[in-house]
């Protein structure tokens, strides 16, 4: 039978313990620095401000290379952020989730690709209905 586990959106995110600093294990006098090892670094802390509103998505295509987004990169998207001009956003265009840069021009909202081959798209509907979320970070494997 299928079962499911309730997955909470990490109110206290899973800690990834990367010790900032630790003394060598020695069979003698303990390192005087050991007393200061208390903080570990957690990438969630750096990348996720609002766990309930944060989604990860995977990028496809090359039109946003200029913004540092490569194919297969993972984008961190915060849906709760106010979309403002200049931000990279995920938008629902023609039923598809698409990455664009939000811009303001000719007195209206525009969606731009970082690629001159693609024309700017003017937003005529309610911005709220078009913008899916604001991209805050790119996770790119080298």
């Amino acid at each position, binding site marked *: *039978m*299928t*079962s*499911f*586990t*309730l*997955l*909470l*959106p990490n*109110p206290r995110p899973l800690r990834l313990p990367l010790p900032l600093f630790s003394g060598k294990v020695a069979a003698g006098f303990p390192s005087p620095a050991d007393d200061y090892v208390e903080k570990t670094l957690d990438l969630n802390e750096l990348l996720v401000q*609002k*766990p*309930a*509103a944060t*989604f*990860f*998505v*995977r*990028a*496809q*295509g*090359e*039109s*946003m*290379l200029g913004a540092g*987004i490569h*194919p297969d990169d*993972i*984008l961190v998207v915060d*849906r*709760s952020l106010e979309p403002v001009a200049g931000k990279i956003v*995920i938008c*629902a265009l*023609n*039923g*598809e*989730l*698409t*990455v664009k840069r939000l811009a303001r021009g000719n007195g209206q909202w525009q969606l731009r*690709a970082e690629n001159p081959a*693609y024309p700017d798209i003017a937003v005529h509907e309610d911005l*709220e209905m078009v913008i*899916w979320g604001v991209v805050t970070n790119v996770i790119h494997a080298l």
Partner: protein
Amino acid sequence: MQTRIALVDCNNFYVSCERVFRPDLIGKPVAVLSNNDGCIVARSKEVKDLGIKMGVPLFQVQQLVNRHKIHLFSSNYTLYANMSARVMATLEAFAPSMEVYSIDEAFLDLTGVCPSDPIAYGLLIKKAVFRATGIPVCVGMGPTKTLAKLANFAAKKWPKTQGVVDLSDPERREKLLRIVPVGEVWGIGRRTGAKLDKLGIHSAWDLARQPEKRIHTLFTVVLARTVMELNGTSCLALDEIAPDKQQIICSRSFKQPITDFEGLMRALARFCARAAEKLRHQQALSHRVTVFIRTSPFKPDAPHYERAASQHLALPSQDTRHLLTVTRQLLAAIFKPGYHYQKAGIQLDHFQPITEKQQLDLFAPFGADPNRVNNTALMSAMDQVNRRFPHAITLAATGLVASTSSQGAVSPQYTTSWRDLPKVTCQ
């Protein structure tokens, strides 16, 4: 200060979860199917408008599905649970206390939070949840839980409310109660509704005007409380902590009917193992095991058979092995060959906390050893291993292939699997 309770309820929750990641399906008919794709358990507005009712078996509406190109999803509970947790986490910020009532509803205590403009506050909640999660909700408010629930019904039903209704004002309340059928009041099932109807109580307003004593005598104290709640006197407190379940049911319909005893037993063994695991999770022992089996109610031509059997346990148990033994005995008692069994299940109830000192049963077999029916250490070791490595340890009785459920069109695990992340195009 007047109490103000809000009920926040997600619109067509399972459908909305699917649409968050499939914007192409916004405005199109979408339905979600039950566990093994048997029945329709969630419908978009477009599907409701076609007259397709909640819970109908898929085969009964297959023609409509084809004709209107209704997009069907198998249920993806991992996704729904994750989206639900996001909705609840967002709601937490809006009230000092909150009761998560179900996967898609929560009561918030807004007493003193927004005295001047509750509607504006409701709109704020609605907007914040949609913004954070993409899930549309409606907000109903009132001085009691029952009225908040009713306000929510109104908010859903009439679009011009913008999805937020407040019933604090008695005049407004009366207006609504007069047009709402009594069957829509929280806690009134079909049978009670019919009985009320016979007594000439048709609308929620009719019920609110009944003397509590009369309702108490004719029905139950619970319904008498509903009358008080409809009149603005709060009788039901907010349960901030979900109470432990008083019964655990694990059951499933089979896509292919099962005809043999061992086949049914294998399915029941899996349900039993799952139920026992849940029981241990809430630190309880069960005093009673019930097994039920039935043929399909939707095949009038095939011979119908339906039976349930219960056994009281002399010594309460949470041990899968002991519960399996009982399950097998019960199945043997009710199983009849020659039928096409379409559903089976197990229910555990009459719980006691494991910490409670065990009262030995006077009629327990002499020398009955509590440890034989309850090896706590063994079971907790098994649960721990299974939590880290799902299905690593199963009892042989459950069989080798765990495939009672068949799902055709389950969506990706968008929010819980790196491999299933939503794809976004750069073009």
